[in-house]
């Protein structure tokens, strides 16, 4: 056979194979895969679209994904195809150097986002997020407006509850120790001062001397958020510690009864409603001396609107993960 005809046939075959494969893998989905918009899909306003474009322009999606998988239950509800109908172009992301942002809307007050974008390590020690202090005030408003919409149509899961094991233990021991009694709380204060105050501080503000050396700062018990803590929740946290942090498992060294004394004391700590400290979770206020921050009326915190769920703790939103995974 003629050599050229051979090449021609071979060439046609390559073309055909390749076109078929391209058709199957990109054009066929575009043709057949048209999910209906789900209840969770968000339609963006003009300002939010602008914020989304800033999110894309600054390359936020290189480090933040926007899809919750089956294996990350603590990040919220698993996403569905219909959630992405209005997400064009996509910002799924393929690498998570930072947290998944599918449900970040309402998790923090807007002022927190402002502070976090201008001086990330002031509000989140250890974070490696770049500072976006160069964004203009309008750009920042748009970006934060966009972030606050993410996941806003997803239902809020119920409050986290301690595992059954701890609830049972709590039920048994609380028959012997009445956590509501002030004498018990007084006894708990001694245990607190001996074991907890070096990190959590004498007044429970999370500013004990040891906290200076910690990247992840101890919890500030004076936040109004802790007013909502159940007694068995305190018990669980004390007993098991907080995975991934320096908070130890106290049931290794304290008896259940001692831990209940401690719970009795912790639940009496005053919850100050001072937005300067509580809503922003600023561990080191002194770091916020940046004139940029002051320019943006950082100290004038907006009142919490209904879409902002509480003081901004994982546990207020996600039912499964025990406040971890952030």
């Amino acid at each position, binding site marked *: 056979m003629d050599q050229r005809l051979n090449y021609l046939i071979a060439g046609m075959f390559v073309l055909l194979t390749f076109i078929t494969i391209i058709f199957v893998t990109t054009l066929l*989905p575009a043709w057949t895969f048209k999910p209906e918009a789900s209840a969770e899909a968000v339609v963006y306003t003009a300002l939010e679209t602008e914020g989304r474009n800033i999110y894309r322009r600054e390359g936020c999606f290189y480090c933040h994904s926007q899809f919750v998988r089956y294996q990350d239950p603590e990040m919220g509800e698993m996403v569905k195809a219909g959630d992405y109908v209005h997400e064009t172009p996509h910002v799924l992301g393929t690498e998570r150097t930072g947290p998944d942002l599918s449900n970040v809307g309402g998790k923090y007050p807007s002022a927190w986002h402002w502070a976090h974008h201008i001086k990330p390590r002031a509000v989140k020690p250890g974070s490696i997020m770049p500072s976006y202090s160069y964004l203009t005030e309008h750009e920042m408003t748009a970006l934060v407006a966009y972030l606050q919409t993410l996941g806003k149509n997803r239902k809020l899961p119920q409050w986290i509850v301690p595992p059954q094991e701890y609830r049972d233990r709590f039920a048994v021991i609380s028959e012997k120790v009445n956590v509501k009694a002030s004498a018990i709380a007084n006894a708990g204060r001694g245990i607190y001062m001996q074991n907890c105050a070096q990190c959590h501080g004498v007044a429970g503000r999370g500013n004990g001397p040891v906290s200076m050396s910690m990247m992840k700062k101890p919890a500030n018990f004076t936040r109004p958020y802790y007013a909502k803590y159940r007694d068995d929740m305190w018990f669980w946290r004390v007993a098991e510690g907080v995975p991934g942090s320096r908070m130890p498992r106290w049931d290794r060294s304290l008896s259940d009864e001692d831990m209940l004394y401690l719970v009795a004391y912790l639940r009496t700590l005053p919850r100050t409603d001072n937005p300067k400290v509580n809503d922003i979770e600023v561990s080191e206020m002194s770091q916020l001396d940046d004139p940029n921050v002051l320019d943006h009326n950082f100290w004038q915190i907006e009142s919490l609107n209904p879409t902002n769920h509480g003081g901004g703790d994982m546990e207020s939103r996600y039912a499964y993960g025990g406040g971890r995974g952030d």
Partner: protein
Amino acid sequence: MSVLTRAFSEVFSDQPYSASRNFLISGIFWLVLGTTLGLLAASLMTWPDMIRGIPQLSFGRVRPAHINMVTIGWLSMGYIGCFYYILPVLVGRKGVWNERLANITMVIWNLLVFFGVWSLLNGYTEAREYAELEAPFDIVALAGLILVGINGYMTVLSGPEKKWYVSVWYILGAMFWFPVVYIIGQRVFFAMEGLNDAIANWFYGHNILGMWFTVGGIGILYYLMPRFTGNPLYSHTLSMLGFWTIAMFYAPTGTHHILQSPVPEWLKAIAVISSVFLLVPVLTVLTNFFMTMKGKWSLAADHIPLRFALAAGVAYLLTCIQGPFQATRFINWYLHFSNWVVGHAHMALLATFSFIVFSATYYIIPKVTGRKIYSKRLAVWHFWLSLYGWIIMMLALTIAGLIQAAGWHFAIPYDQWVIEMHPYMIVRTLSGVMIVLGQILFMFNIYHTVFSKEFEPAPHSPTGIAFV
């Protein structure tokens, strides 16, 4: 003749092989800039407060600039430079079909890289990973690719040799496939909605590697190995089998990048299956590669281009074992979203494809300029700095990726495992310093060879051993 007119006539020259030389030396320039941008991005991940308040130098903009400069700038230009030498030689021509057109393409491509990366740094981006360039640049790139393709095809058709060696197949295949992938993947003339946008995005993200860098790189490697060793290619049947199976199995793999997202399951299944089947073309290539080395392993002691090619072959083996491994659902479940994948990308683009072009450059530059490479010692330093830089980077990123994956899976707070990753990020930055240093030596070596007034003429050396 003034310097300017001389430069002008060099740039728009119609001398045989001038386009090959010009493509290679401009590629090397973008290589140094591109790796420097990568080093900057690595440093920003390590010390995030190093640079503040300069939008052009924030991580989210440096990263796409790095990726586009090394893919569109360095590797693509290096590849085209190699093609423009290999194709005419294999079909028995002197120079490509139209050398002046090739040089004009080279100028267009350089402008594209410069303005494209400039626009990315200034925030003009389509924000699709690997396909960030804005529409005007896409059209210029497409025009450039079509010019490259026309020149390549016309070279082959106008050459006296009608029995084409396998490299010709691979190179012509790459020149045809990449523009097609580019049109669909970059969505030059049309838009897609929602998740379909992501599917097309990763079709491009994977196939710029699969249908361009892999196919072209193997073409170059199949040319170089018989030349370096003096052995004939081990098996033409295997090489052709590899060619067809690459075309079959590479194109649908893109969806394995979004394996746990809610895209159609059948698409994911096709992606995973064809990812695993990629082992077929890979094993044909590597069998051919290592069997062609038969009896000639001792050459590597003294033959610098061969050394680069061998390192590339081993890295290709590792890449293509790791790739199908992490593309399976089981493994991807754990490793997705971590720096492990970044390590994998560097293994493919740096240790495999860049090393192939390094090898080809040390061989082709003496052929096209008639000058012996300026310094063997610099080339050896380039080899070891690049190789060890890559190995250290690979290990650091892999370990960091495992820490990160564990962090996400065991729901450890993000700001805790980021601290654990920090030492590995420092090591990664140091390995980046080694790599950049190696590339600066490479640029100096090649530029000194090409531009210096004093030079040694390239000796007669069929295997190229005496060139370096």
